[in-house]
């Protein structure tokens, strides 16, 4: 794992064929003190990936010379960069495919630059802790202790069934990152060949009833339209993440 020092700026590779988008992302990232590298097509992107070894890659799926989805496994094979795909609003299936192929997160166009920065932060953190470094996650007044397998809400232990805990743990392992339905179900129902989203939906509903202040307007387990769920960590506010690293 790379050491994080104040002097090391994280490097982000922006892969997009549109100059204006690259310029925009560059401006946003520069504001947050990231170093950026840009690529306008797939060939260039793979070259920059080898040369520059970026910490994070932002990949627009609509590239002129190659299908963005093809690029996802290639990038993951040839580097240990964190991959965030960017795609249009309606391309749900494309997003799911990219995530299942190994992308770490996604962003929908048009995006909010704050959201972009938040995703980049989450991805960086997950990169640091991806070897199981997270021991406990806080979201609102809920704490999930992945080591002790204990969930508390407002200091009180919440009783969860094994499957409920399984789902929550999946989300908590990568807080802030979207986890697809398939990814969750493959872990929670490992022996079933056909995964039925309705079971997951019902489970999430009971989880929310146990964890959320207002289950009708969930703030901890957030649905990602047609894709999966995301655990919104912290107090819901910006930069409020509260993360305990295993020492």
């Amino acid at each position: 794992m790379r050491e994080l020092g104040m002097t090391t700026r994280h490097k982000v590779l922006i892969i997009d064929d549109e100059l204006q988008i690259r310029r925009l992302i560059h401006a946003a990232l520069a504001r947050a003190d990231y170093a950026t590298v840009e690529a306008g097509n797939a060939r260039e992107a793979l070259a920059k990936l080898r040369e520059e070894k970026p910490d994070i890659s932002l990949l627009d799926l609509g590239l002129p010379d190659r299908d963005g989805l093809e690029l996802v496994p290639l990038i993951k094979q040839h580097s240990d960069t964190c991959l965030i795909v960017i795609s249009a609003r309606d391309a749900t299936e494309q997003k799911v495919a990219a995530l299942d192929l190994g992308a770490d997160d996604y962003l929908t166009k048009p995006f909010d630059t704050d959201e972009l920065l938040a995703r980049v932060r989450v991805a960086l953190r997950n990169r640091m802790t991806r070897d199981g470094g997270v021991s406990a996650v806080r979201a609102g007044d809920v704490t999930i202790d992945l080591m002790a397998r204990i969930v508390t809400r407002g200091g009180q232990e919440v009783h969860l069934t094994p499957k409920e805990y399984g789902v929550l743990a999946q989300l908590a392992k990568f807080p802030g990152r979207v986890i697809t339905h398939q990814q969750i179900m493959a872990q929670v129902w490992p022996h079933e060949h056909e995964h039925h989203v309705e079971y997951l939906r019902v489970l999430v509903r009971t989880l929310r009833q146990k964890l959320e202040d207002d289950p009708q307007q969930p703030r901890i387990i957030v649905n990602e339209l047609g894709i999966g769920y995301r655990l919104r960590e912290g107090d819901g506010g910006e930069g409020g993440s509260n993360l305990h690293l295993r020492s």
Partner: protein
Amino acid sequence: MALRRAAQAVDAQMLDYVRAHALAGSFAAGERIVVAISELPSAQGLVRAAKRLADALKAPWTAVHIETRRSLQFTAEERAHLADTMALASRLGATTATIPAPGVVEGLRQYAADARATQIVIGKAARSWWFELRHGSVVDRLVRDSDGFGGDVAIHVLPGDDGARVHGAAAAHAGPWGKPADYIWSTLMIALMTAIGRLAVETIALGNIALLYLVPVMFAAASFGLRAGLFAGLLSSLAYNFFFLPPTGTLTVANPENVISILILLGVAIVTSQFAARVRAQADLAHGSARQNAALAGFSRQLTAAASQDELMHAICGEVGRLFDVRTVLLLPSPDGPQLRAAVPPEDRLEQIEKAAAQWAMDNEQPAGRGSSTLTASDWLFHPLRTTRGVLGVLGLAREDAAEPLRSDQVPLLMSLLDQASIAFDRLALEEEMLDARQIRERDRLRSALLSSVSHDLRTPLTTIISAVHELRRQHPSDLADTVEAEAQRLARFVANLLDMVRVEAGALALKVEPIDLFDAVAGAVHDTRQPLAGHEVRVDILPDIPLVRADPTLLHHILINLLDNAGRYADPDTPVTIRGRRLPDAITLSVIDEGPGIPAGSETRVFDTFTRMEGSDRAKHGTGLGLAIVKGFAEAMGLSVSAANHSDPLGACFILRFPQALILSPLPDED
């Protein structure tokens, strides 16, 4: 009933099969009626009776006239009757046919077998006993020979008409007298034979001399017909008697045996002429039919070649004019009365009386003008052109010398030609419709492609602008940047709506249905409509245990966004917007309820029309008017229904999304 219909369908194919393989025998399945009609006026009653029978049996029927040699001798009046009867049958839905045959019974039997008729309708002749004695009754023979039809043919004999008169013994019915030249030739030949006989009388037996006279008798009978044959026979026997039979030089016969020679000569004349006349009549009929068929075939070939309506109309005029040697015009209906569309030879204008006749023919679907029963003062005869879509126009015929344009025996041919013309018009119309449909499809496709490409092209820079402005606001907060962002967002929403509408209208919504928790759907939509709903409290009032539903998450999201956006636009400021989910016995409803002016009375369904915006409010409403149309399009694509209503306390609009039972997932058994 179903069986009979199936049988009828099978029959159509079988008829082709029978024809193609020239099978003999009966394949009768459905009922099929053949009515035999004659030249008598009473035949029309027979046609009507057959029509009633056909209606009762729901069977196809054919009116057939058996054309025999006698048909050639019909008077103009008889021909007219026959044409009228045929036309009547055609109007009443019958197929009509004219079959040349040596005799009525034979022709009818042949036709009935070909068409595999199951019922034959024929009239009992109202003819003199003398006629029947000479010609025999068709009815009697038909009934007697009914075994010849294959046994299962029912024959209906109706009073008042005879199918057609038969002339079994044609000898009794002499042909025309013929030309004087025929008799001169006969006389010359007999003179020649007499001369030869005189020269040879010393060397050959007297009896054999008689054989010489057979040559002119047979020749005259075969070539010039019965009367010339009889004349030759009589003259021969006189010459034989006078020049050869002792006592020569007188017309007395000494030896009674020689009487036999004279009788034989006469008999040969009769029999030969009989056969020859029959063969000639057949040939004449066949020739006539062949001419008609050739005319019809040529006509339809010409019409098939026509690529446009104008060409077709000219072809019809030209061909009909050529076949009947008349002037022709074709008129189509128009708001200002019949309009001249084609004429051969070119014709500029028609007199008022002609136009009136043409109009009458169009309106009544009956011939009008000269030679018809209506408006005979017109120089022209107008026949309607009937197609499957009603009367298409009228064809006018006239002669240069202002005589009657058509002989009555030409009417059936004209009717056949008009039928062909109608078919050609139908074919053209169908082709045009197909072309139109193709063009409309193509235009729709182009329009959609254009709209979608424009929207895409707009969207790409818009997304960049929105993100860029957002970043700009972060770095240099300003009111102007806020304005730009808000307007850019609105523009983006319009473009998105436009794209969605294109997808709805193209029917190109690829559904990806999955189980959905309405709480998720609502929370997502509320999250994405924070801006338009700023200033409104959003209340989510959904039953906690509401079942999951099956829907496309993206489409449902768009539906809810549009409904919430709509509520944000029309609700009074600072009023809450409520999202209510309820379980009904057979459905789940999700309603978006606002407090505001509501929907103008009577437009509860109209609000979902494309580009409808609510009127009756002086507040400027920003919107494309597409939002609710998209809601409806998306909802229907997923099997949901959507409705709008007003509620009174507090006043406001209520949009109700209804998930039918089929889209509701039953609660799952507890797994843990």
